[in-house]
């Protein structure tokens, strides 16, 4: 139901593809086209590229141990990946924003090694294939391309390794988010944080109270402005300076 006067939320993720053409901002198109696979070719190989969803907040997209048969690009919303340790505690692995791909870490396995859950209303583009082995044998070039995407993904997690202060980790987290949003055409300075402070804390290996304490400090220092789930980076240069030791660029 559209309400007169309500501005549609701008989403730079396009929805302009069809049977024969990838959407203009498709996350898979480069990998596929570089190997000579157009949409029609994929269909012939029983690889489906289809828009699925909505997944509602709390709904799982896949669970650890599920048979691996698809990767997916986020088109709207945020997905959280996590594992549950032997003690039953959740460990957040990462957050996936529009334009980013989930399931990549399963690409050399037969099963998903983690859980993926929607943090808000999530729309996906699912890239599915009948059998993992098919991808390896019929489209090795494509598999290699997807491996490349995976290694970029691992790079994102680097900020967790290393002995950094809470302020540095938080700054790095925010700067990384900002860059990822900007890369997809979203605002680099106005971030909508769909993840809870517990999730952020878990991901950064901090206590939830510390997350808030750090953000309040950053706010007092004029680097950010936080209101409910909206975070505005008011001093991008200042925040980058703080994050530099972690991000190294």
């Amino acid at each position, binding site marked *: 139901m559209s*309400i*007169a*006067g*309500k*501005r549609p*939320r701008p989403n730079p993720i396009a929805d302009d593809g069809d049977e024969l053409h990838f959407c203009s901002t498709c996350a898979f198109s480069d990998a596929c086209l570089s190997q000579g696979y157009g949409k029609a070719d994929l269909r012939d190989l029983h690889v489906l590229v289809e828009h699925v969803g909505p997944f509602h907040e709390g709904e799982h997209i896949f669970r650890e141990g599920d048979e691996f048969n698809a990767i997916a690009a986020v088109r709207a919303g945020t997905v959280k990946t996590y594992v549950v340790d032997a003690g039953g505690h959740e460990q957040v692995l990462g957050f996936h924003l529009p334009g980013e791909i989930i399931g990549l870490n399963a690409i050399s396995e037969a099963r998903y090694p983690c859980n993926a859950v929607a943090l808000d209303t999530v729309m996906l583009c699912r890239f599915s294939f009948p059998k993992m082995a098919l991808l390896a044998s019929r489209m090795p070039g494509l598999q290699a391309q997807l491996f490349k995407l995976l290694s970029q993904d691992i790079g994102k997690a680097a900020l967790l390794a290393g002995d950094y202060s809470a302020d540095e980790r938080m700054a790095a987290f925010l700067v990384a988010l900002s860059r990822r949003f900007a890369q997809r055409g979203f605002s680099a300075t106005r971030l909508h*944080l769909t993840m*809870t*402070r*517990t999730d*952020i804390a878990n991901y950064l290996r901090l206590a*939830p*109270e510390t*997350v*808030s*304490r750090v*953000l*309040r400090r950053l*706010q007092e220092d004029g680097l950010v402005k*936080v209101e*409910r*789930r909206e*975070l505005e980076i008011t001093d991008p240069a200042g925040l980058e300076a703080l994050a530099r030791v972690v991000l190294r660029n």
Partner: protein
Amino acid sequence: MAAIPPFDAELLRRYDRPGPRYTSYPTAPQFSGNFGPEDFARAARLSNDDPIPRRLSLYAHIPFCFSPCFYCGCNRIITRDLGRGETYLNRLVREVAMLGPLFDRDREVVQVHLGGGTPNFLGANQIGELMESLQTHFRFSDSADRDFSIELDPRFMRPGDIEALAFIGFNRASLGVQDFDPAVQKAVNRIQSVEETMAVIDACRKHGFRSVNVDLIYGLPLQTREGFGRTLDTVIQARPDRLAIYSYAHLPQLFRPQKQIEASQLPSPEEKLGLLQLAIEKLSAAGYAYIGMDHFALPEDDLAVAQAGGGLHRNFMGYTTHAECDLIGVGVSAISHVGDSFAQNPRDLPSWEAAIDAGRLPTWRGLRLEEDDVLRADLIQQLMCQGEVDVRELEDRHGIDFATYFATELGRLPPLEADGLVEQVDGRIRATSRGRLLLRIIAACFDRYLHQAQAEPTRFSKAI
């Protein structure tokens, strides 16, 4: 906003119609019985999840009064049995213990308010127990600008009470006076001497209370310009930091105690407006700033300072300096506002008691705000506190095109503009200086529920 608005009797008379005071939007009548304890618990959980969760404001309702004031429309229980206070306190403490765990421990309490009824129906040591229980289950801020306030009936203060309350942590008080005129006091059954009132004000100042408020009412039976004028002079001489001048609404069908008031003894509408005008003239001459609705404050009081700085807020406790807090209400009829949800406790004591005894949160009804509610609440909040709305800023915050979204509401403004209440200028919708006495009338234009309700009766009558 600070200067006291010009008094336009004709305008005020024309708009002297009942309506919501917008201590919340949506207003309490919109709360639904479908909203229960699990919904409140969920709202609390969600509110903990913000990157910087909001700080907390606690409200406790003490419904007991020793003596019935005939004008009163509040939720109260008349009794002289102090044991009832003790029994009530025991359950209050259990309710606090249920609520504490729902809120993350690092969320500081920056505001506490005790209202009623008569909070000082409880003894100072009992109030101390309540505060101790709150402090056990919540983390109190130790900041100098924390606001711990209590409503007091000066007639029932015991020696040493104020000192004890200050020791407990209270730093602000609100006193009921209404009118010192003996004839009026007799007619409303509230006999209260100037001496006992001043003694309480003096004690508050002596023991470091940063702000004292006095409540007055105009429109009471047998009130005259002379009598009310003397009351105003006496009160102003004591220089309270804040004053609230309420209009008496005679609705004996709704409020049974008011049946004891002789309608024939009430001032006429013109006389009543004259009393308001008198109050406004005297307060203006005495240097008071106008906050909004019926509230005045000295320019150096926190409320006036907050308003000047854009930090004024309005909640169920009226105007307040602490914007951006989640409000937790305990006790009979108390209302909470957590995240985008409202929750209210039962208004009758037995239902509240039964829930506590069953180990359940006593949530009776409430509401989870939709996007449209949040938008309108923001708009109305700005109108009631700043007297104006910045249209472009509202558009940005909520992702709307104001002129399209509020086309119908904007259509309600021209008659108010013609009457000189409101103007649209510079991308703002602003109350004029005389319109600032009628903020709720302007706010009502944007109240979706008010106009839905008004639309429905017509449909029914047409069907017949």
